[in-house]
């Protein structure tokens, strides 16, 4: 019997393999671009922050108004992220596991914060809760301040960061379907047991991923928060707003010192993100 004729060595090179010089050129261009537009700015943040030495850097971070900004940012994230975790899971569950009228409208609504400019998002809250807004007179009569105060900042952050968790979960939950939940119910599990033991563990990596992105945005949000904040130093300034104020005052070292903290947050977020991606594969 004749042996099947195999491909000759020259023909074994894949048809989609480019010559070596094209490969190296592409790699060089990508690295050059990333270096010029991402790495150099990243380094410049830290060099600017440390230009006048470590002492000046620490002074910039330890300044009372900087500390107040850091605290406010952490408080805002600590409220907004858990709430959006709960809302996001609830919305994703409703959308992925049930059929109901208005479902597609809900899907579009979840994307609304991504679709509108953050400045508009901030203005919406001013129009709602501001002194001239719909609820303004009622709020001022009861001595509750929302706009130009911490509640407004939290609300604006909640609004802007709402989609992150839900968007991560919906496609995964839709793909997984409801059969495992049905199996759990037949085996005698209750609704909560099914949720905690089956639904949630199945989406835990996507959920964590969504939470991390949500947190990064909650701490870094500028536009919407800027509109509702009022920029009261030491009271309603979050870290991004504080950076802007310092910069406008030509206080570059302090501005970059606070900015470096936000940059570190971004780097930690990236690290966690790639760790989770590796784990969930």
């Amino acid at each position: 019997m004749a042996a099947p004729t195999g491909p000759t060595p020259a023909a074994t090179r894949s048809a989609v393999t480019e010559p070596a010089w094209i490969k190296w050129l592409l790699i060089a261009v990508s690295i050059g671009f990333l270096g010029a537009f991402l790495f150099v700015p990243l380094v410049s943040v830290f060099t600017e922050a440390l230009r006048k030495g470590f002492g000046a850097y620490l002074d910039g971070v330890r300044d009372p108004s900087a500390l107040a900004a850091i605290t406010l940012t952490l408080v805002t994230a600590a409220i907004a992220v858990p709430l959006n975790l709960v809302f996001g899971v609830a919305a994703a569950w409703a959308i992925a596991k049930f059929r109901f009228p208005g479902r597609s409208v809900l899907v579009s609504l979840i994307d609304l914060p991504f679709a509108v400019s953050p400045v508009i998002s901030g203005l919406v809250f001013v129009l709602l809760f501001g002194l001239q807004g719909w609820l303004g007179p009622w709020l001022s009569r009861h001595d509750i301040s929302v706009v130009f105060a911490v509640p407004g900042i939290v609300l604006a952050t909640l609004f802007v960061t709402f989609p992150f968790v839900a968007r991560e979960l919906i496609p995964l939950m839709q793909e997984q379907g409801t059969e495992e939940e049905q199996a759990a119910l037949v085996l005698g599990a209750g609704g909560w047991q099914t949720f905690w033991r089956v639904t949630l563990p199945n989406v835990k990596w996507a959920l964590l991923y969504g939470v991390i992105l949500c947190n990064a945005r909650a701490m870094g949000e500028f536009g919407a928060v800027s509109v509702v904040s009022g920029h009261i130093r030491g009271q309603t300034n979050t870290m991004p707003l504080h950076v802007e104020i310092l910069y406008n005052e030509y206080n570059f070292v302090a501005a970059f010192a606070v900015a470096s903290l936000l940059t570190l947050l971004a780097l930690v977020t990236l690290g966690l993100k790639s760790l989770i991606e590796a784990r969930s594969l």
Partner: protein
Amino acid sequence: MSIELTDITKTFGSFVALRNVSLTVPDGELVALLGPSGSGKTTLLRIIAGLEQPDPGSGSIRFHDEDVAGHRVGHRRVGFVFQHYALFRHMSVFENVAFGLRVRPRAARPSEHEIRTKVGSLLRLVQLDGLSDRQPHHLSGGQRQRVALARALAIEPRVLLLDEPFGALDAKVRQELRRWLRRLHDELNVSSVFVTHDQDEALEVADRVVVMNQGGVEQVGCPDEVFHRPRTEFVMSFLGNVNRFRGRAEVGRVSFANVAVEHDSALAGDASVFVRPQDVEIETTPNGAPGFKATVLRVHSAGPSVQVELLAESGETLLAELSHERCGALDLRRGGSVVVVPRRVKVFVDRREA
């Protein structure tokens, strides 16, 4: 535990999935729900499990005289094996099987030691004892199927329900697994219902076959009964291959395709006449038995037997199935003339004439 369904109707919007279905599964039997897709067999299975509710006001569901229609799905104590297994993907084989025990209310929950013993013996039963730490995605289809079965059995179900249990497996594994399921059923003796669209599977495995079509039950009987004594044209044509002719029945005989054969028909009128390919005999010359002339269209060797496509003198095409030996002796050629002798016919008279 016997299952008794009375007068169950289920509609999805304007689609009637089940129409006044009544069904009894005697204690300890293995029953197949057999039908084409859309016949309502899976809906019926899910209604028994409690995963679907019958229409309000339609009949009752009883497990051994206990009305379970009001019971929530988890309280019916049924074992359900899903078509695609629905194993918990983030749990090991062991935890999958243990799930039904771990979610019990604290008072009824077995101790960790009891759970280990129980799951261990179930995994031995389904021949997976070495694999308890594996994740489901590391198992083959047949192994997943058996994990799903062990998981369903862990809650000591009163009835076992299987939705297309072998549907997603390849042909060889399928055959082994269905024989194994039959043996397992005889060992456990729990009333079981499985859904299938494969008539071989139903006829081979089940004690009793329920043939379903368009939301209704066409016939219930043991495999022999539904195969050899089909009550409707649908059952006749769904179970195995058939050749269908239009003809006319007289009392005691039936004529079709230029032939008249004896038949114990007590009715007269226009009729559908069915002949199974195995019951078609081919002769090269007339041998006295009633037959009709035909031309050979195609001969193809289909594994263990030979299939011959024929064109009858009266214009119908038909299929005959014979052994390789017989085919060799006849020396069939394309275009050759033969005589076809229907050995056994099944007649369904259209309407009754006195």
